[in-house]
């Protein structure tokens, strides 16, 4: 195929290409069509019914099946060269059952009807083996069958239909800006993901979803005086199409460095990053002590992720993650009091699986529950956790909150955090006004090093760039900054939150939990917020 043909094919919309002839025994697909086309829904439904019937025949009282085709494309570069162009495609089935009151799961990439039936039987075998060591049978919150439904990420441009050349050109142009600006090294990449997921369950749901995510990323490095400094890009991974990389004036947030809302200017950010990494080399090393911190959303999302989103996961609260990710300082008792002061009165945090542009946005979760939005922290008080179907009864809920997720067809679904976001301040407040009130502080932009204990009490965070605030004014760049705090003390020290004009999302593809470990993609929104009297350490060392 010539490049021209590739572009032409890529530019065609969905449905413009005739559906390939899918054989149930092999599913031959055109490689480039496959990057856009999913398997026909009727075929998936037929395969799903094979799984459900086979599971029931072996004694399952409940079964669900996920047929997934996962596509990803990575274009990665360094300096003036392309390091890799890779497309990966993975197709298979994951079947989860309840038999004798216990969960069982099996997965396979054998997509013949016989193979799927065998995988379903294996799931029942696993459930029966485990039934001997359960303490009580699984209790599933009811979920009525939804019939045939579908959902698609509302993208404008499918990243898989954008020619590889365009991505390479964008990245190499950005790299050239960095090298021209005096950088020693620059790495950049664009990762595009498409999850084509079909879910069916014995409840009578057949859910077809087409989910898109994009992650542009770079790190620029500069060496000087035998030391090196880096600055990462301020773009976020997003639940959007390639339109995220089409900057608009409205999406830019001005200030000491330009930050971005729902569109990202990679070239501009590269230019800014190169200037900042140069300044970082000669920046003043921070004096340890107590500071008022002004945290930009490009930084604060990670603090929210670690110190609010994780401890409100019900499986952690109950001890199901004790052996790996850990438990939580939040308990059922603290929730039941309805008085546990998680943060100051202005702290309001919501869980939201619907937010447009976010990584966690889908129509239905991976156990067929329609997605929703609910409060976790209201006026500073803990009011709810995050639960799925087999946990809903523990919270006294009549239905699941719809936050069950598996990273691929190959993994079992379990409770994963939805987007968890700090709500903007209700009073009008700009970032400049917030800084005016700070006598001795640090303004932090971008996420850096992060670490938190297994019950989410004690954390330490770095950042990308740090600016000293003295008597209400920015006084220059700092380096070697990390702050340490106790979660509850930190959120109770939140004294100001900028209004909704400043609200932005950050996020990550690699929220880790579970054994075997699984990654979840999740966004966290906030406006710039101020935290008073936080302990800052100096991280410079010599070897």
């Amino acid at each position, binding site marked *: 195929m010539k*490049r021209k043909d590739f572009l032409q094919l890529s530019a065609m919309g969905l449905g413009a290409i005739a559906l390939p002839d899918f054989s149930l025994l092999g599913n031959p697909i055109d490689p480039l069509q496959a990057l856009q086309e999913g398997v026909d829904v009727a075929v998936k439904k037929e395969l799903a019914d094979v799984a459900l019937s086979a599971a029931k025949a072996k004694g399952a009282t409940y079964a669900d099946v996920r047929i997934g085709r996962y596509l990803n494309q990575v274009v990665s570069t360094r300096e003036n060269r*392309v390091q890799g162009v890779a497309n990966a495609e993975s197709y298979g089935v994951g079947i989860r059952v309840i038999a004798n009151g216990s969960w*069982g799961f099996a997965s*396979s990439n054998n997509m013949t009807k016989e193979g799927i039936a065998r995988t379903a039987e294996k799931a029942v075998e696993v459930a029966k083996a485990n039934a001997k060591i359960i303490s009580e049978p699984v209790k599933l919150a009811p979920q009525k069958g939804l019939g045939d439904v579908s959902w698609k990420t509302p993208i404008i441009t499918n990243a898989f239909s954008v020619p590889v050349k365009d991505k390479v050109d964008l990245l190499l142009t950005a790299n050239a800006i960095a090298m021209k600006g005096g950088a020693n090294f620059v790495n950049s990449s664009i990762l595009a993901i498409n999850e084509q997921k079909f879910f069916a369950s014995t409840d009578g749901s057949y859910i077809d979803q087409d989910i898109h995510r994009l992650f542009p990323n770079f790190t620029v490095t500069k060496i000087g005086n035998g030391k090196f400094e880096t600055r990462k890009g301020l773009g976020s991974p997003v639940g959007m199409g390639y339109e995220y990389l089409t900057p608009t004036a409205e999406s830019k947030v001005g200030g000491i460095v330009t930050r971005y809302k729902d569109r990202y200017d990679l070239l501009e950010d590269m230019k800014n990053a190169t200037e900042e990494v140069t300044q970082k080399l000669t920046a003043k090393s921070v004096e340890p002590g107590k500071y008022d911190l002004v945290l930009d959303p490009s930084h604060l999302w990670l603090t929210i992720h670690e110190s609010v989103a994780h401890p409100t996961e019900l499986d952690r609260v109950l001890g199901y993650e004790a*052996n790996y990710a850990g438990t939580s300082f939040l308990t059922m008792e603290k929730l039941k009091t309805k008085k546990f002061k998680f943060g100051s009165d202005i702290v309001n945090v919501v869980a939201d699986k619907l937010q447009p542009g976010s990584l966690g946005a889908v129509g239905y979760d991976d156990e067929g529950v329609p997605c929703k939005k609910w409060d976790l922290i209201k006026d500073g008080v803990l009011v709810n956790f995050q639960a799925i179907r087999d946990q809903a009864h523990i919270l006294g809920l009549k239905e699941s909150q719809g936050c069950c997720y598996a990273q691929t067809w190959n993994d079992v679904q*379990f409770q994963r955090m939805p987007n968890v976001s700090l709500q903007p301040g209700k009073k009008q407040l700009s970032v400049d006004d917030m800084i005016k009130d700070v006598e001795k502080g640090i303004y932090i932009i971008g996420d850096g090093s992060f670490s938190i*204990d297994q019950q989410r009490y*004690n954390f330490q965070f770095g950042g990308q760039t740090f600016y000293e605030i003295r008597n209400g004014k920015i006084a220059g760049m700092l380096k070697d900054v990390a702050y340490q705090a106790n979660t509850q003390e930190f959120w109770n020290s939140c004294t100001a939150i900028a209004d909704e004009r400043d609200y932005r999302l950050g996020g990550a593809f690699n929220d880790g939990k579970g054994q*075997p470990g699984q990654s979840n993609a999740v966004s966290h929104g906030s406006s710039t917020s101020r935290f008073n009297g936080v302990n800052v350490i100096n991280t410079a060392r010599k070897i």
Partner: protein
Amino acid sequence: MAILSKADARALLTKVLAYSKADECEVSLGGQESGNIRYARNAVSTAGDSSTLSLSVSSTFGKKTGNASINEFDDASLEKVVRRAEELAQLAPENPERMPLLGPGNFEFKDSIGYVPATANMTADTRAEAVAKSIKVAKDAKLEAAGFLENTTSFSAILNSKGLFLYDTNTDVTFSVTTRNQEGTGSGYAARGFNDIRKLDTFAATSIAASKANGSVNARAIEPGKYTVILEPVAATYMLENMFRGFDARSADEGRSFMSKPGGGNRLGEQLMDEKVTIYSDPYNPELPGNTWNREGFPLERMTWIDKGVVKNLSYSQFWAQKKNVKPVPFGSNMIMEGGNQSLEELIKGTEKGILVSRLWYIRMVDAQTLLLTGLTRDGTFYIENGQIKFPIKNMRFNESPVIMLNNVEALGKPERSISVESYRSYLVPPMKIRDFTFTSLSDAV
């Protein structure tokens, strides 16, 4: 079946390669069959059985390379994944770092010793039985256990258009358990990893976790600061894993690693650590078998990285070796740190004042230049005085570099196989006594 025999893998790869029209092509297979069981609150929670086989194709025209992978294996899919890689290669710009593929006959390759049939033959029932033993220990000690057992059988194979064919197969079983008391005031942990399931004793491992859980109740707070610590192998392993990744010449030569020499170049030949420190790779170590070749097609042999504290070797990719006019040095498939003959108990006995660290948690890089890491203690931290464990102490956050730590070695114990609590990779690492280890704050976490 996701696990192909050497002959079947070669036959399938030969068939795929026949579709190639590229100047150079490398096709590879990776297959894995695994089963796992997870439990919490003294009962099984989730368990699964997984089987995956994936084919990757890397096609090159001149210096333009494209990669594609698929997990469907009918003839049409095999041909189409090759075409896809070729199309991507044609669309990709030239990569000046692209090195020609190696052909057969350059090196001698030996089979790995990592495959154990007993592990490959594990079933859902044998996993459930092993976990039942662990749960019984916890219940008898009035504790709640949460744990995970997983066995994996895997293979990998590559064939390239120069005719080089390589195959490897391996089994692995990992087990970890956390035991906590009902009140949430005590917690203990144990982790084990083996190629051979017959070496795994879930009863004994859980007993250790249980004694740590009950022994860690009523922990006292001590002032953060610099302390002599004894890191158990599972704690030391997690710390060192972050350092092993940096045994690379290129990032050092480029000036952006702890292995970079101030003023340029790398630290090869420099005394970077205490002379008690020797670290090497050896895929034929019977305690820690590793893969016997790397993706570039080089055999892996015993290779010393740190010899009595001196940086002896750094890994060189084919490209970087050519650029620096040295021989390529493939990165190791395992890491082994030498130690002494002392047991953990003997190390404790010889300590006047110090802290016993059972496990470390959530280690992240703070500064790549000095390899400054931060993280916390977890699941059993104890104060030692006059050669005895005196009382449990509250967990603390540390900010410390493994390079600085390995300059402050007081004593090393007998190496044992241990797993990283984050990557679940196995290593051979001794318990180690380190002076001036830097704790920076207290944590309320248990």
